[in-house]
């Protein structure tokens, strides 16, 4: 027996297996591609709408609205002022439009991740079976190279915004799910017992006790999700998502150092703005429970 060569399956059957799966998937794409595209059409519309709103409105108005939103969330003049300055610089260096596209993209992706992720996290916290089922899927989503799941997404949707959003959401949703689950599981058992002893229903327990007490942890998850969707914009640009990622990709291909650095720094600027804003917001939520004497 040959102990050096690994006893692998024959090349022929390996090829046959791949071909069967590939052709099966191709048939599926042909049969369902249009339907799936129709289902996701509203997503495309929403993204286009936000993008147009940000790009076609007077820039000063957009800047004012963004600054107001940042101030409302963080209640910090320092963060609001810093954000305005950063955006002004980014705009002055000719990246205003791309920055707006990226902000629209990240906003929509985060929204979807939160809307899907928080309920999944809640379900995982309520049931150990659900937890055991979803955890390995999350592990896979976080470790699988993102290019791999770009393949089927692109096969179904082609190039464009929608496959970009799907890829980003897959990559960015795990933290919000995990931290929602963790936050709810960390709620003190004696407080839960009190809720139960006073006759709370499961829904009341969730609404009045578990979610409010888990909120700081959930917010940390949302923050992570935002950061991860920003990190995905360059990868997403490979499948036709416009924004700051595209010039970076172009710079890599053609070795334009300055162009790459500038757009990269613009992504960093957005990341810092969103991070500081959401963290300040999360801290503000926590303040109620940490009020001083």
């Amino acid at each position, binding site marked *: 027996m040959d102990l050096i060569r690994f006893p692998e399956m024959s090349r022929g059957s390996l090829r046959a297996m791949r071909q069967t799966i590939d052709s099966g998937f191709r048939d599926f794409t042909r049969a369902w591609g249009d339907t799936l595209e129709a289902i996701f059409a509203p997503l495309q519309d929403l993204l286009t709408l936000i993008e147009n709103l940000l790009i076609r409105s007077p820039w000063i108005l957009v800047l004012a609205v963004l600054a107001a939103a940042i101030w409302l969330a963080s209640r910090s003049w320092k963060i609001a002022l810093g954000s305005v300055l950063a955006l002004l610089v980014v705009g002055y260096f000719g990246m205003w439009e791309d920055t707006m596209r990226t902000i629209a993209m990240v906003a929509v992706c985060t929204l979807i991740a939160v809307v899907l992720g928080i309920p999944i996290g809640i379900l995982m916290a309520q049931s150990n079976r659900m937890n055991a089922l979803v955890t390995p899927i999350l592990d896979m989503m976080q470790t699988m190279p993102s290019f791999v799941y770009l393949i089927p997404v692109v096969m179904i949707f082609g190039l464009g915004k929608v496959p970009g959003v799907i890829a980003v959401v897959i990559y960015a949703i795990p933290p919000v799910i995990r931290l929602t689950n963790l936050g709810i599981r960390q709620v*003190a058992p004696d407080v839960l*017992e009190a809720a139960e*002893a006073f*006759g709370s229903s499961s829904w*009341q327990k969730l609404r009045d006790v578990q979610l409010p*007490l888990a909120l700081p942890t959930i917010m940390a998850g949302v923050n992570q999700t935002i950061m991860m969707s920003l990190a995905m914009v360059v990868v997403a640009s490979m499948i036709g998502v416009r924004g700051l990622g595209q010039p970076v990709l172009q710079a890599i291909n053609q070795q334009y150092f300055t162009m790459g650095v500038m757009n990269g720094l613009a992504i960093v600027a957005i990341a810092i703005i969103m991070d500081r804003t959401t963290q300040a917001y999360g801290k503000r939520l926590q303040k109620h429970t940490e009020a001083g*004497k």
Partner: protein
Amino acid sequence: MTEAGMHDIEIRDLYKIFGPEAGRHVEAVKAGLTKAELNDRHNHVLGLQDINLTIPHGRITVIMGLSGSGKSTLIRHINGLIRPTAGQVLYDGQDVVTMTPAQLRDFRRQKTAMVFQKFALLPHRTVLRNVAYGLDIRGIAEAEERARHWIGRVGLQGYEEYYPRQLSGGMQQRVGLARALANDAEILLMDEAFSALDPLIRMDMQSILLELQQELRKTIIFITHDLDEALRLGDKIAILRDGAMEQVGDGQEIVLRPANAYIAEFVREVNRGRIIEARTIAAPAADGRALPGFAVKARSRLDLVARRMTKAGVSEAQVRDGDRLVGIIDLPSILEAMVNPADAANDD
């Protein structure tokens, strides 16, 4: 709530075994398998065994025991937070054990309220919203108004908008008490409610509770590991040890007639003068003898009687229950009763 609408709670043949196959071992335990044997052979923990207890309505029943005796487990059977392995918890003809989740929820909302050892307040809600919590759950419109009333009753007015973390332990437990009272429930479950508090504050809280109970006449089940607290609060005291009921009775019975050596050891350090009443040791008046001129009340505690007699400079007194003569009491017999018989024997 009227006295007429209230009901006793009857705990019948209650067993609780902790472990994955609790139901399989309950018959063996009934047949005499001990806690240690169950643990060694089957790796199950015997929480409660053969508990029978009537909890009278409108009174304070204290369940006492050291940690691990099963007292916190027992109190949680009354509102169904823990389900027994066998047995019944009867209230108004209904068995709490067999209630559906919806019935149980209603029972908890309408009939019971609970105060916890570690307060278990909602940290993200103000004092006012905490006290209103039980009413919020039931969707009662005037929750806030009623909450304000009870915050005043426990002496916390002015603190409505504080968060629990801003309050001391004693104040937090007042919030816990107000939250339970605001529910206007007949049954008040107090799980080591004052154990986490400093001694002086604990005495203070006991006084508040006794004062409120004078007026409210709720069915209170009070858990404690502190005998002095049990004797001060309890109309009826049940002593648990290793999940079994050792003795049930009022404070005097337990101090004067401990059912076994364990309880005798337990009550050794008690200040008997504060527990025993004059009528308990009064000797019948001998016929023909003149009665002493000084009189004391039948239900006065011995320490009080002794003080009054010493002050008045008399060594004998008649014990009277209103108009009726109960008997005669003298200082030597008072002293004898106040000294623990076990200690007296040791020093001979």
